[in-house]
């Protein structure tokens, strides 16, 4: 149930997602009650090169991994990146 309010979230890109987006970070406004899935729809519209990455994309809010069903909160720091490869 949305009240029509909007929330601001920041987005950080890591590794080659930065190249695909053409920037290291950005901000988006999303409707109240929006999920990561909704945010990704908006981001893919702005950064079409991210579309092909959606299946392998990892998503964190703050320092924790989240699924696409996560409900965004005002001020959330969203990180998007490809599979990790430490070691």
């Amino acid at each position, binding site marked *: 149930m949305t009240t029509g309010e909007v929330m601001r979230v920041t987005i950080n890109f*890591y590794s080659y997602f930065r190249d695909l987006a053409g920037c290291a970070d950005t901000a988006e406004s999303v409707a109240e009650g929006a999920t990561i899935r909704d945010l990704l729809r908006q981001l893919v519209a702005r950064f079409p090169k991210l579309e092909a990455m959606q299946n392998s994309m990892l998503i964190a809010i703050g*320092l*924790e991994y989240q699924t696409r069903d996560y409900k965004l909160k005002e001020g959330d720091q969203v990180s998007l990146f490809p599979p990790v490869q430490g070691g």
Partner: protein
Amino acid sequence: MKKWLLITNEPIDERALTMSRMMSADMGTALYFAGVVRQSEGAARIAAIEYEAFQEMAEHQFEKIFVAIEQKWPIESIRIVHRIGLVKVNEPSLWVEVIAPHRGEAFAACKFLIDEMKRLVPIWKRPRE
């Protein structure tokens, strides 16, 4: 369990690390893993790998792995160093020390740590020619 983590741009000094080992008299195993950059990445020859970390999240995810290890095995201590930035072929990018009573838990914890790191810790690499 004692834990020590360093994510650093500086070369990994294996000699100094090995020599600074702390080990109580009830411990029987010290296990060391050095992950070293190879010259072949897939089919291509490379000169180096550039590592990038989302450092704050990497530290948090390592901490969660440490907690999981602590709950599984009686490990006395773990030290881990992950280098970021440019790491040349033949130089270590990762160094791990596990101190445990017996070898079984040392091997199990060390493998678990590296497997979980490769699944969860936000560090990425790019080959450089």
